[in-house]
């Protein structure tokens, strides 16, 4: 059992700044949990507290059944991959991995067995006796990975390990890490600011903002069912469009779900507007559209030119409503009321095309 639990954890730095306040979080055993959020949101601090590299000001952290709050990093049964790899520059690849194993007091035969295994696992056989300075960024990343794997810990921590790699290598490492997690079946905690990484790699996602957890769930859950405006705009590529309604409520919809032509059996909002900019992404394009409700993004396969006058169709089932505290409104009656109130807004109309009429046309 190696679930990780934060119980009322607070972190205040010596300069008096509280970066995490009242953190309650459970990271499931054997999950690939991604902590994601903008920089300075406390995700790295949370990770470093699991590792024991940061003191916990208040509260308790458990790994499995054990309270590790006061344990030394080496005694917590965790391994970590650092953002800048933190490889010992004066040791060969082999010695880098060996160092931790020797300190664990393993027998020579055990060390050799593990070394051979992890070095071949990350594909560094040729470089076992090379100095890290002779290796590329990707290879150094693999040393750090091998060093962590070799310890055979039940928890595996990674602090933005892919951010120093180029785009192609990053994609490759992504799938390798997913594969690694499947093989090892240990608990992975992965910190990133990149929501694409979070969505593609995680089995669970924890979204942080300003030291608080905004939402936890599977990638699908947080994408399809955001709890608040922050999650709605942070997750997704690009995030949700948010437009203010009267009564300080907000309407959100995904740029991918907006259409330039009326779909069949359409029931929803139509926003007239003008194309401001157009970014070609290959299969589809990202349009900035100026409407009476502000500039919105539309990601669509339909071709439109700069300056075109368009109507943006947003179906009722694709609309999300948020209250004045930016929390999601889930009450059905309230949603209906809000949908109708949009009608009152100038230049916007609600189309209600019933299935019968559509069929008659």
């Amino acid at each position, binding site marked *: 059992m190696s679930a990780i639990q934060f119980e009322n954890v607070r972190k205040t730095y010596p300069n008096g700044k509280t970066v995490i306040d009242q953190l309650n979080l459970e990271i499931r055993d054997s999950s690939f949990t991604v902590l994601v959020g903008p920089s300075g949101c406390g995700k790295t601090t949370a990770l470093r507290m699991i590792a024991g590299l940061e003191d916990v000001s208040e509260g308790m952290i458990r790994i499995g059944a054990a309270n590790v709050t006061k344990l030394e990093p*080496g005694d917590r049964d965790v391994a970590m991959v650092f953002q800048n790899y933190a490889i010992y520059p004066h040791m060969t690849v082999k010695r880098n991995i060996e160092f931790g194993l020797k300190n664990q007091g393993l027998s020579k035969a055990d060390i050799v067995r593990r070394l051979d295994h992890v070095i071949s696992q990350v594909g560094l056989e040729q470089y076992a006796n090379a100095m890290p300075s002779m290796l590329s960024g990707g290879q150094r990343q693999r040393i750090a990975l091998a060093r962590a794997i070799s310890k055979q810990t039940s928890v595996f921590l990674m602090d933005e390990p892919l951010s120093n790699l180029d785009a192609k290598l990053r994609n490759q490492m992504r799938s390798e890490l997913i594969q690694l997690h499947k093989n090892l079946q240990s608990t992975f905690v992965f910190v990133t600011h990149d929501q694409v990484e979070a969505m593609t790699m995680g089995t669970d996602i924890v979204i942080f903002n300003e030291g608080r957890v905004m939402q936890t769930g599977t990638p699908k859950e947080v994408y399809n069912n955001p709890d608040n405006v922050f999650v709605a705009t942070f997750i997704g590529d690009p995030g949700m469009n948010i437009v203010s309604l009267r009564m300080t409520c907000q309407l959100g919809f995904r740029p991918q779900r907006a259409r330039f032509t009326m779909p069949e059996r359409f029931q929803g909002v139509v926003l007239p507007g003008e194309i401001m900019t157009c970014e070609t992404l290959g299969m589809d394009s990202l349009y900035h559209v100026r409407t009476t409700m502000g500039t919105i993004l539309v990601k669509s396969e339909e071709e439109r030119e700069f300056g075109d006058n368009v109507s943006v169709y947003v179906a009722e089932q694709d609309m999300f409503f948020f209250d004045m505290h930016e929390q999601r409104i889930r009450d059905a009656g309230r949603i209906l009321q809000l949908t109708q109130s949009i009608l009152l807004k100038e230049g916007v109309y609600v189309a209600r095309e019933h299935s019968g009429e559509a069929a008659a046309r």
Partner: protein
Amino acid sequence: MQENIPAKQLHDKKGGPTLMKPGRMLPRALNKVLQNPYVLIAPAVILVSIFSLYPILFAVKVSFMNWDVVTGEQSFAGFNNYRSIFADPDSMQVLKNTLIYAFFTVCFGLIFALMIGILLQKSTFLTNLVQSVIFTPHIVSFVSVTIMWMWLLDPQMGIVNYVLKMFGFEPQLWMMSPKTSLLSIMIVSIWKGLGFSAMIVIAGLQSIPSYIYEAAKLDRSGRWSTLFRITIPLLSPTLFFLLITSTIGAFSSFDVVNLMTGGGPQGSSNLIVHWIYQIGFLKFQLGKAMAASVLFLILIGFISLLNFMFFSKKVHY
């Protein structure tokens, strides 16, 4: 130089202006002269020749001559000067003193610097204060330092003897005794050099990134294992720099001997450079002094070579 595009080609064929044409900014003749590599290194070569090479060659020449400074008489002496150095009983004593002095000041200087550097590594108000206090001897002149230490080491009234007595040790004569005079100047030298070395060590320690230590913590590396397997290896370029500079500094120590003991009593604290000074400027045997200088140059060269051979492979850059 040959890889440079010739100036003519830079004045391109189409007649349009090109960027950065040296030929436009300087007269063509001067430009041609400046393309000669020997012209470019000439200033450095001239300076080194006048202030280093010429004096060395001059010293070598004088070392083969009898040169009476008072009468101005000069005559060829062959190897007589060298022979007289090897025949002089003082020379062996001075060499021995210098080797002992250099070995201990360098070793203990480095060890203390490392210890203090590690203790003062963290930057807090107190450590910053202690750092500047420890650094002070380095900027104080040797004359003031010597006067202070002569008080401290005074056999009758000195505080060092007072402290020794307090803990039940025998008081020492320090600079007055042939047994302890060399030790006295070693203490003062180490004390004076410590601030500078410690500062360099601290700078070296601060250049080791903190995540290396964090990785070591996760690798279950204890305090000593981290010191000997992580910190010191990563500090090796700094330590090597200090080793080379402090070795050369120790061998050419002059002021501490001159000011504190004058080489005495009975030559017990005399070092090579001070001895050369005595021969040349007190006994006016310029030829012999130059011969000693030449031998000293060879010795220092040899010791530096040894340092490089033994330690440079262990240095991780």
